[in-house]
Structures are given as C-alpha cells and as structure tokens.
C-alpha cells in the first residue's frame, strides 16, 4: 500500500520547535566521464508554435488535447489528417517553447523523412485555418516540423501542405481509389527542398542531376518538367483526365509561386524565394494555373527568384522585418583526425524485436596501432558522446540492408543493455543514400580484421 507513516516524531515538547528548513535546490550533474558513457536521448518536439501556446492551451485544456481552435473539418481534412498520421513524421530537434534549448539535432536528411509543419497560431500564417488544421492536437496529428526557422520557411511549408491537401481532396473526391504514393514522394522532395533552403537541415549535397543552383528556376523547371509534360505525375492513369484543371477549393492558398511536381524536379533547382511578395504555393495538379508548367517566364512573376542563392545559407536570405531568424546553433563537432573513412549516420540497436534509436552522429573508421580497424560513432552534439566504439574483427557480420542501411552484429560498447552488457546485438547503421550504404558496406568488408 502506498500509505506512509509520519517521518518525524511529534510530541508536546518538540512541536513548537522551529524546524530546520529544507531547500529545494538544484540537482547535481554527473561527471564528464559518466556523461560520456550515457546515451542521451533527444525528445521529439511536436510543437514549434512557441511559448504563447502554453498558457492558452492549458487553459482551454480538455482531456489531454490542446485547446484546439476550431478546425475546419472537411472531407478532405480527414484524408489530410490521415496523411498526417501515416507519414513518417519525424520531428527534428526543433525549437521548443521558448526556453531556448539549442536544437542541436538537425534532422537526419533521409528522403524517407518528412515532417509536417506544425504552425501554431502564434506565427502569422496566411490562411489561419490551415494553421488551425495543423494545430489539431489529435493523436497521430501532424508531427513537429523540422525547425521552422524562418517565416519564409513557414510560408513555404504552409503552401506545400495546403497544396497537398487540396490536391488530395480533389483527387480522392473524384476517385477514391487513386493511389496517393506519388504525391507523397513529391511532397518529400519539396519538403526536403524547403528544408534545405529555409530550415536548419543538415547540408546535403546537391541531388543528382540538378543543375547548378544558380540557374534561374524557370529554365530548370522547364528542363525538368520532362516527358510527361502536362501530366506531371505517374499518376497518369487516373489523373490525366483533367490536364487543365485548376486548383480548386484553394481559396486561402496564397497566390504566387506554384511548383509543379515532376519526377525530376529537384529542390536545389528552385533556389530560394524572397519572402516579400508572395507565398509560394505548390501545385500537385498537372496544371497548376498555367497550362504548361513553368515553361515560360510567365510564372516568373510568381517565381520571384531574387538573387538565387545556394542552399547553404538559409539564414542569410529572408531578411525582412518580419522574419525571425534564430541564430544557427554552433555545433562544434568533435573532430576525429586520422579517420580514413567518415560518414554521417543514424545508429539503431535491436531490442527485443524492434530497433531502437541510439542517436545521430558520424561514423569513423580508423586504423589502430596494431593494424586493426576501429569503428567509432560519435554523436553530433557539442559533447560528442560515444554512441559506439568497437574493433572491427574479420568475423564481424556485416550486411547491406534495405535502401540505405548496413547492419552489423557485435557486442555494443558502450552497452545498450546494462543487464546483459556482453551480449551481441544487431546494430543498424543508416546513412543518407543507397550509394553511401554501398560504400560503407564495401569499406567495412575490405577493412575488417
């Protein structure tokens, strides 16, 4: 039973004595050594709406939900929200409510990850109802976006989401049997692009066949609008019916730029947008509001590519009065010299039947004095916690798995299970691309033992 007896004897003699006060104080932090060996988990942020959300949500609190502003439910919303639920929404270490924690984790820029912007009402968004929809605190709801660092980013993202919503609602209304996969692929691509430009994403090498970023968009887009011309989706079997269809039901959509989603539209090509005139919109439709995708300079009015900038400097643009640019976090990465191979990765370990994340970091392969190979994975934080530190024996099981993973089996150091510290555990190393995975696998195979 949880009953507790009195902690102190009370009598007619001592009841009146002044008790010594006890200070709440602040807890002591563990030593560096101890900390280095701890796997520190970063919590997923769901809310980037800022502190102002706190009081209000709490006041209007019902059950465990936030005070959901009245959403505008529509049939489309269901699908959209469902979308929100089924997407692989990983929050990146985003800004949380204003206590100013450093978002030291940039999102792992795998194409598989897409976050949905969680635009709280505190940021001035066009189409407040969109924000409301996304504020819906329902369970699978939109997960936190990657750091919405700038107004522009928010706007871009809003436009993207609005477009998705509209497109899906239109098409699902027309044909509930349609396959939405391609939409999601395109969404991912667009999102990744926005992130690169406006978010705090880890820098990515330019994707495949993109032209240099300085190319003005229209031409690039036109070049990439490829064969399917008007119907940009391989969705064609169901959506070709209406090449000329306009975006509908998108009144709150901001006017402005529209992006088409062709197979080869790669984000870097889009450069960056200045924030002033317009909020771009993304169009999934085969038409957007032009009959041809970006062929001409027509849309350039909307595609206002002011100085095209590379994607490296998202924070450098968008310097209007409105944009709030929180300072980029100074992530001083712990340097690992004399590593002959280094790769950014995400490390997982198998626990029971599932893989649990150990952390994001950089994998290094080094040669030891005895001529052996050592694998070190160090977390991408200022502290540089060791996520893994093992020798790579020749017998190490090492396999290529999935799109971009390599799996090894070994006794993890530091241990993942304190109760069984010397049990071998499968570890999954996920890298950015398939090529990277191939490279890692090959290197390990070559260099082990």
């Amino acid at each position, binding site marked *: *039973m949880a*009953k*507790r*007896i*009195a902690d102190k*004897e*009370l*009598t*007619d*003699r001592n*009841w009146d004595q002044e*008790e010594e006060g006890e200070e*709440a*104080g*602040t*807890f002591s*932090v*563990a030593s560096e050594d*101890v900390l280095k060996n*701890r796997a*520190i*988990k*970063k*919590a*997923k942020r*769901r809310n980037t709406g800022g502190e102002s*959300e*706190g009081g209000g*949500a*709490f006041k209007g*609190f019902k*059950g*465990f939900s*936030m005070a959901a502003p009245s*959403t505008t*439910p529509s049939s489309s*919303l269901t699908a959209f*929200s*469902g979308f929100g*639920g089924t*997407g692989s929404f990983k929050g990146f270490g985003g800004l*949380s*409510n204003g206590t100013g*924690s450093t978002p030291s*984790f940039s999102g*792992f820029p795998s*194409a*598989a990850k*897409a976050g949905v912007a969680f635009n709280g009402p505190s940021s001035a968004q066009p189409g407040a109802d969109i924000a409301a929809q996304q504020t819906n*605190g*329902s*369970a699978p709801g939109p997960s936190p976006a990657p750091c919405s660092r700038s107004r522009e980013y928010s706007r871009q993202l809003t436009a993207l989401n609005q477009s998705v919503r509209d497109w899906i609602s239109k098409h699902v209304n027309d044909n509930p049997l349609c396959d939405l996969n391609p939409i999601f*692929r395109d969404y*991912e691509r667009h999102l990744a692009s926005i992130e690169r430009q406006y978010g705090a994403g880890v820098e990515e090498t330019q994707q495949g066949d993109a032209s240099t970023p300085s190319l003005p968009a229209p031409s690039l887009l036109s070049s990439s609008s490829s064969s399917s011309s008007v119907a940009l989706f391989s969705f064609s079997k169901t959506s070709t019916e209406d090449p000329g269809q306009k975006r509908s039901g998108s009144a709150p959509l901001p006017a402005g730029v529209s992006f088409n989603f062709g197979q080869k539209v790669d984000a870097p090509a889009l450069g960056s947008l200045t924030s002033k005139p317009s909020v771009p919109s993304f169009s999934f439709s085969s038409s957007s509001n032009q009959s041809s995708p970006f062929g001409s300079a027509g849309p350039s009015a909307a595609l206002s590519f002011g100085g095209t900038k590379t994607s490296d400097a998202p924070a450098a643009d968008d310097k209007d009065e409105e944009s709030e640019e929180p300072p980029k976090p100074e992530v001083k990465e712990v340097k690992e010299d004399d590593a002959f191979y280094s790769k950014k990765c995400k490390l997982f370990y198998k626990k029971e039947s*599932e*893989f*649990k*994340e150990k952390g994001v970091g950089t994998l290094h392969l080094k040669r030891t004095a005895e001529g052996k190979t050592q694998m070190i994975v160090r977390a991408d934080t200022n502290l540089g916690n060791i996520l893994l530190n093992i020798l790579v024996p020749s017998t190490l099981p090492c396999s290529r*798995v*999935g799109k971009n993973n390599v799996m090894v089996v070994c006794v993890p150091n530091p241990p993942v299970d304190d109760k069984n510290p010397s049990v071998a555990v499968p570890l999954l190393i996920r890298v950015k691309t398939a090529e990277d995975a191939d490279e890692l696998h090959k290197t390990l195979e070559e260099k082990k033992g």
Partner: protein
Amino acid sequence: MSTRDVVKKRVSRFKNKGKDLAKLREKRVSECVELRKAQKNESFLKRRNIILSSLPDEEAFSPEQNDTLSFRIEDIIRDVNSNDREAQTRGCQAARKLLSKGNDPPLKEIVDAGLLSQFVSFLSMDDEPTLQFEAAWALTNIASGNSWHTHQVVQHGAVPALINLLASPMLHISEQAVWALGNIAGDGPGYRDILIECKVIPALLACISPDTPVGYLRNLTWTLSNLCRNKMPCPPLSAVQQMLPSLIQLLHLSDKNILSDACWAISYLSDGSNDRIDVVVKTGIVPRLVELMNRKELFILTPALRAIGNIVSGSDLHTQMTIDAGVLNVLPKLLRHPKPTVQKEAAWALSNIAAGPCKQIQQLITCGLLPPLVEVLRNGDFKTQKEAVWAVTNFTSGGTVEQVVSLVQSGALEAIINLLQVKDAKVILIILEAINNMFIAAEKLGETEKLSLLIEELGGLERIEMLQNHENGIVYQAAHDLIEKYFNDGDVEEVQVDSTQTGFEFKAPDVQKKFEF
C-alpha cells in the same frame, strides 16, 4: 523571648502568614510563568513542580530567594534524619524549595545526600499530610531530572507509595502524586510499563469525577498522555483500552490544556500499526478529532492533525471514517495555514488519503482538494511540496482515467514539472513516476500524443532531457526511458529492413485507426 513569639516569628518566616495575599499571588504567577518558559526550552518529558494548582492560596509557597539560599544541605540532612516530625517537615520542605528553584536545582546533591529513602518513607505517613506533601513534591522534582535521577527515585521504592497517595483525601497531595508519576512514566517505555504493572491506571482513573477541578484534570491528562507515549514497545494494549474511555471523556471538555494533552495522548496511541489505529477509531473519537483539527489554537490543532494524519495512514476503512467525519472540509484550510509545518502535515495526510481507492480519490476531487494541493505544489515550502508530490503520484496511481485527467487539468502536472530540477533525487523519481502513470491513463484514452504535447508545452521536455545529466543513475535511466517511450525521435518500431521505396517505413502500428478526428 516567649515560646509563642518564637513560633510566631518562625511561622512568619516559614509561611506567608501576614503577607499581602494579592502580592503573593502575583509573584507566584510571574515566577511560575518564568519557570515554565525555562522548562519549555528543555526537551525532557518531565515537569518540575514550581506551583501546584490545588493548593489554597495562603498555603501556596513562592520561592523567595533569600530563604532558599540560606538552606544548607547538612541542615537538611540532619533535620530529615531526625525523629522529630517538625524537624523532618522543616528539612523536607527546605529540600523541596531547593529543588524548586529556577536555575540549576541541586538534584544530584539531594540524591547523594541519601535523603531519598526518608522522603519515600514520608509518603506513607497518612497522619502527616504536610510531610507527605513536601516529600511528594521533592520527589517529583527529582524525578523531573534525567534518567539517572528518575531511576534513583524508582529504586528507592517511590512508585507504590506514590500510587497509594493517589487515593489521598487531600486533593493537593493526590495531585502531587499524579505529577510525580507522570514524570516517572515519561522517562521511557521501561518505567511506563512498570507503573502500568503496578496498576497505576485504575488508580488514576478513579480520580476523575465531575467535581475534579480543572487544574487537577490538567495534570492528570498530562500523566495519562505520558502513559500512552513511546514506542518500542508501545504501551500494552490492555492498558490502552483501559485509558481510552477516560481520554475520550477528557477530549470532550472545554479546557484547552486538557484538550491539548488529550490530543497528544491520542496522537501517540494512533502512531502505530493498524491494530492500534483500530482501537482508537473504534471509540468513535474521530469526529471530535476533526473538530479539534479545526481549532485556531496551534497547541490543539497540531496534535489533533497529527492524530488524524496517523489514522489516515491506516486502512481504507480508517481513512473512510475520517472522510465521513468531514476531514476533507478542514484540510483545504490547513493546506493554506500560515504555519509551514501545519501545511506539511496536512499535505502528508492528503497524500495518504490519495493513496486510497478511487472512491476516496473522488471524494478528494468533490471536496475541492485539488486547488489547494496545486497551490502548495507551487508555493509551499519544500518539505510541504514533497508531501504534495507524493499526493500527486498516489493520485495518479490509484485514480481512474477521468480522475487523472481532472488532476492534470487542475494544474498539478504543470506544478510537478516545475519541480523537476530539485536536489532531492527521490522527489524527482516520484514525479517521473506520476508522469508515467499519467501516460498510462492517456494510453487508455488513446491520447498519449496529446499528453506528450502538453508536457512539451509546459516546458517538461527540456527538464526531462536535462535529467539525463543527473548524477544519480536511476534518475538518468528513468528520464531516458520516459523519453524513449513517449517522446521518441526516430524510433524505429518495426523496421522493415526490406523497406519500401515510399516514405512509409516508419509506420506506427496503430496509425490506421486515427483517420477520424
């Protein structure tokens, strides 16, 4: 000088004859107050007699410095050991006065002078009431010393004689004996139980009558409370059952000192196993205790609150009796009491009620205990906050899902989150346990995401993350596990290692259900 003159002179020196009564009374009272204050600072369980209430004014004696200082031990020894009643009385009284002086009375010297046997023999001289009285008074004051002093008194056979004196027709003598016995009982469980074996309780109880003056009853209640006191062992159950009816009677009187000491007695008796608590509550005393808990006098409120606190640490049935008696109407007031120790005791009691079944938790909610609970979580001193945190965790553990939601809505979650940085690792662990319990409730509603979001908004995520740096490894682990379970960033639940080309590799298993909002 004629004999008469001599006598007169001595008497005038000896007693207060001829002196102004009012002045004497004043003096007595002020000295009494001074000495009682000095007593309070000494933390032993005995009391030295300076003034006795049963004494009629003109016989009461106030220690006059000149007289006491002039007594010498040799004279006292000679007088006490003589065969002359008068000399013995004189000697004994001189000793009593020495033993009654304010600073540093010569307890040891008197014992070492070998006077105790004589004093004890004086106790049985029914034909010499003055001598009996002085001897009893002297022995009282010796017994008020430390354990060695009390031991001396007992070893010289004082106990049976004192118990016999309880039946004296002279009230002041009987009262003095009550006092002496109270000192002996207060020494510890050993002498307490010896007294009980000597049948002190029936003898004491026989002194209670409707005519018994208040002052006497005060002393008696105090002595009874010493007989209820101490654990290891607790007083014999049979003794407790003998005393309880009278204690109940005393608890219904109106004199504040009596009420205070009677509450102390009950607080000692309820400080024990559930059997002990059972014996107490079966007397039907609980409603009266709740009433007394509501008094403004701190010296009554404190023991009553402690007694109730003990009772609610018992079984659910015991707790229900306090609830039925209205304790939940008084607790909010006490949670807001200006004295921190009262708040703390109230929060402790609340935490034990919250450890009960959900029916009782519901009563907590209905009777409006959540707002004051949250207030002390926010503003209380740390010891009170600790108790309040226990209340929250117990609540989340025994409460229904709806009740836990009410708790969260009341602001308790926010308040405990704000305590996550304290030094005390135990408190942090209790808070994390509460949060875990809240998630368990949320799971039943399918609302863990909402709770995660709420915690994030309340600033909980930073704090929980920070706890991973705590020097205490258990705290680190608990924080880490909490994040992993409910705030996971990139958790791969079922890694389809042969992943598809779409972005749905990380499909959460229950996502299909969530299409309607």
